[in-house]
């Protein structure tokens, strides 16, 4: 057993405060067990970072840790999060969503978040049990491949973080730090009738909050215009806040002032983006629009009081790095978040929801949203602590780099019922990446298109494995997208020819598997078995010598070439002699694609001078070849190209037709595409409705051009 290593560093041993009978009723139990627990023992005595390495006896290297249990009390998020640290640099934060087990006070869940990138903490699951009147928590970490790790913790605080608020005010202004919840008649019927303080709001959000009123600040600090600039506010914070320090601390300065330089349109601001320690101060402007009750309001005084109170809680939320409700998905959200435009939260604008502020306050319970509570209680503490992470940096961080394998599922498949390819038929597979968690997840939009983000292994008939190496590495300037739970990304995967040659061309059985690199580890696809049929007929055998060359491999990989003439000559022979075979469809497409548009070809002229020659398009030939490839034998084409590439090529073809003012032909191509994909079934699976709708939309756009 290890002695509690955290005992020397505690800040809040006695912050187990202020749990009222009302709180116990909220929890539906006689004892609330949510809160922060400190690590007391680790079994077996190994490092949670690298379980194969025993903990060293050196005290400085011992493991420290806490967990934040969030299963009861106000707005439980059914979450346990925690951190481990070892030495100076090794720190990891993790979060797991919990489901109750059959036994009381026992939960299990998957770890869906880890921070920072590149850590060696590899556990994936937790089982949490809490016992005793002085609660003791036991967490079994599992799923990293070797033995489980059992950690024991003891209760440290009922709250997740400490917080100290100081309220100062400009002369002739007054701080609003509490309200009577029933003072204004527009409220939820179920709202508790109480005197609500800012302290209580933040206690219910999980902070061991204390508040005190400081004193008045002379209006002269606002300069000659009697309005506050951000710099003047920052100067006042440094001069008048009794707790001001140039370092992160769980404290906020809240200043009730008259007006900002911006005038009456600014009701409040977290002004502190100045210097190295952001988010330490905010201001509320009592002479701004928040003091103007709508005409006809039944209780203008209560309206003003409520708005000032609400604004103070809102700006303090910014100090804890909370974004506005509609900005959750912006830039660097700490985990992938969805915007909450209609949220009844302190972080929304009441007048921006449907129905305006009347609707907002009729349904507002003086709380933060679940996403916000998750952040306040469970995000790595530097993201939340005022003065620590810069504003908006880690309402947020690069969550996508932290994805662990269990968040996604990667399927590799061929768009055909039987994974058998004809001899010389290019092998194009399909990748499907699915969010298998209950949370939205951020992922790079082009992750399935970026060959640098994946490794493709092909095991041949001889049992040897080789890595498929494409001819080109595409460097995408990739945006991020949110994948909702069960939502998927799809992309085609061409693996027929590459710089290693023809990895999957000889007749026989192959196994293909993809590892997608997600920063935190590799996400492995299913192994996919693929068979290449033997050549059919003498022509295929005779042509194969010319076909399996580097130039043909490159032409197939890049959908054509204007300079690899020998390869193009081979494809013409293939087209002429194997027109009824699947490679014939591909040859037609490539040769048609090559003559569809004018192209510039780099050539040498006298004395080695380089110049571009224009190779003129041959539209009539292009149309004939592309139609043969894509429109005349659709059932075979959609299977051989794969759904994704078939749609891509047909879209490109119809756009080309449209560009040549052949609108009817373009519409027809889309109709054929629609009919082909709508009728398509692979293992009984249909093409997505959204894809079909996109085709309809494209067709309608052409029709509108007529």
């Amino acid at each position: 057993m290890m002695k509690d290593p955290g005992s020397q560093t505690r800040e809040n041993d006695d912050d187990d405060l202020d749990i009222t009978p009302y709180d116990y009723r909220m929890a539906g139990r006689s004892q609330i067990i949510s809160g922060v627990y400190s690590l007391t023992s680790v079994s077996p005595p190994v490092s949670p970072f690298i379980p194969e390495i025993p903990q060293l006896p050196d005290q400085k290297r011992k493991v420290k840790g806490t967990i934040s249990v969030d299963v009861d009390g106000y707005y439980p998020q059914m979450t346990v999060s925690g951190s481990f640290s070892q030495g100076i640099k090794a720190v990891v934060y993790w979060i797991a969503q919990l489901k109750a087990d059959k036994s009381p006070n026992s939960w299990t869940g998957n770890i869906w978040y880890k921070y920072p990138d590149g850590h060696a903490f590899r556990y994936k699951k937790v089982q949490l049990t809490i016992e005793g009147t002085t609660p003791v928590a036991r967490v079994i970490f599992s799923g990293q491949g070797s033995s489980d790790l059992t950690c024991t913790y003891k209760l440290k605080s009922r709250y997740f973080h400490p917080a100290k608020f100081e309220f100062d005010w400009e002369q002739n202004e007054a701080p609003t730090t509490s309200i009577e919840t029933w003072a204004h008649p527009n409220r939820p019927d179920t709202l508790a009738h109480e005197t609500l303080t800012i302290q209580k709001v933040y206690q219910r959000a999980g902070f061991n909050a204390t508040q005190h009123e400081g004193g008045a600040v002379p209006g002269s600090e606002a300069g000659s215009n009697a309005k506050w600039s951000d710099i003047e506010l920052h100067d006042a914070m440094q001069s008048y806040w009794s707790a001001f320090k140039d370092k992160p601390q769980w404290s906020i300065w809240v200043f009730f002032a008259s007006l900002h330089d911006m005038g009456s349109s600014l009701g409040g601001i977290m002004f502190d983006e100045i210097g190295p320690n952001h988010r330490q101060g905010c201001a509320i402007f009592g002479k701004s629009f928040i003091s103007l009750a709508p005409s006809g309001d039944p209780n203008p005084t209560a309206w003003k009081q409520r708005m000032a109170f609400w604004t103070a809680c809102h700006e303090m939320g910014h100090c804890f790095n909370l974004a506005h409700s509609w900005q959750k998905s912006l830039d660097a959200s700490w985990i992938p978040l969805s915007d909450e435009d209609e949220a009844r939260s302190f972080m929304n604008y009441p007048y921006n929801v449907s129905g305006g502020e009347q609707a907002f306050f009729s349904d507002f319970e003086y709380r933060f949203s679940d996403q916000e509570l998750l952040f306040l209680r469970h995000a790595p503490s530097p993201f939340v602590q005022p003065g620590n992470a810069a504003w908006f940096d880690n309402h947020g961080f690069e969550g996508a780099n932290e994805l662990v394998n269990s968040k996604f599922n990667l399927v590799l498949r061929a768009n055909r019922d039987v994974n058998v390819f004809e001899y010389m038929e290019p092998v194009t597979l399909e990748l499907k990446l699915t969010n298998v968690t209950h949370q939205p997840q951020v992922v790079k939009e082009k992750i399935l298109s970026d060959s640098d983000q994946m490794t493709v292994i092909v095991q041949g008939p001889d049992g040897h494995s080789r890595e498929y190496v494409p001819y080109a590495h595409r460097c995408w300037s990739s945006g991020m997208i949110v994948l909702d739970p069960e939502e998927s990304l799809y992309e085609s995967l061409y693996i027929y020819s590459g710089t290693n040659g023809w990895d999957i061309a000889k007749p026989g059985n192959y196994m293909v598997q993809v590892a997608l690199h997600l920063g935190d580890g590799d996400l492995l696809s299913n192994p996919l078995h693929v068979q290449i049929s033997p050549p059919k007929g003498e022509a295929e055998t005779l042509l194969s010598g010319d076909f399996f060359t580097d130039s043909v491999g490159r032409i197939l990989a890049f959908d054509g070439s204007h300079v690899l003439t020998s390869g193009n000559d081979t494809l013409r022979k293939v087209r002429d002699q194997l027109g009824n075979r699947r490679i014939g469809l591909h040859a037609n497409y490539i040769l048609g694609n090559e003559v569809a548009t004018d192209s510039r070809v780099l050539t040498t002229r006298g004395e080695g001078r380089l110049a571009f020659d224009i190779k003129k398009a041959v539209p009539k030939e292009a149309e004939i070849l592309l139609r043969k490839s894509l429109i005349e034998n659709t059932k075979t084409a959609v299977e051989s190209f794969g759904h994704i590439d078939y749609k891509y090529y047909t879209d490109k073809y119809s756009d080309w037709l449209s560009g040549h003012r052949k609108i009817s032909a373009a519409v027809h191509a889309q109709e054929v595409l629609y009919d082909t994909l709508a009728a398509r079934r692979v293992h009984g699976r249909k093409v997505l409705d959204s894809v079909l709708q996109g085709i309809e939309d494209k067709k309608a756009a052409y029709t509108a051009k007529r």
Partner: protein
Amino acid sequence: MVLLHIALQDGFRNNTVLMRLNGKRIYRKNNLKTRTQIGLADSVELETDEGPASLEVSLPQERIVGSIAFVLKSVTYIGVSIIEGEVQFKVQNVPFGYL
């Protein structure tokens, strides 16, 4: 004449922004960035004729353009945001408030 207030609100990230009112350029600024804690990047006010009007907002480097047609009868407040690569407008006859 009537007052038109245009607020450039959410979604600006160091963009060059151009605005044209009835085809005439009224605004150009480089490196425009939303202050996320108040949801506002910049604002402009001008006196203009009553009657039908159109406002075009463009971010040329991002190839984003959007426009809105409206009738100016009284003081009008237009909020402009860039959301998912598109220009979105909000029109009201009371001032915007920021928090």
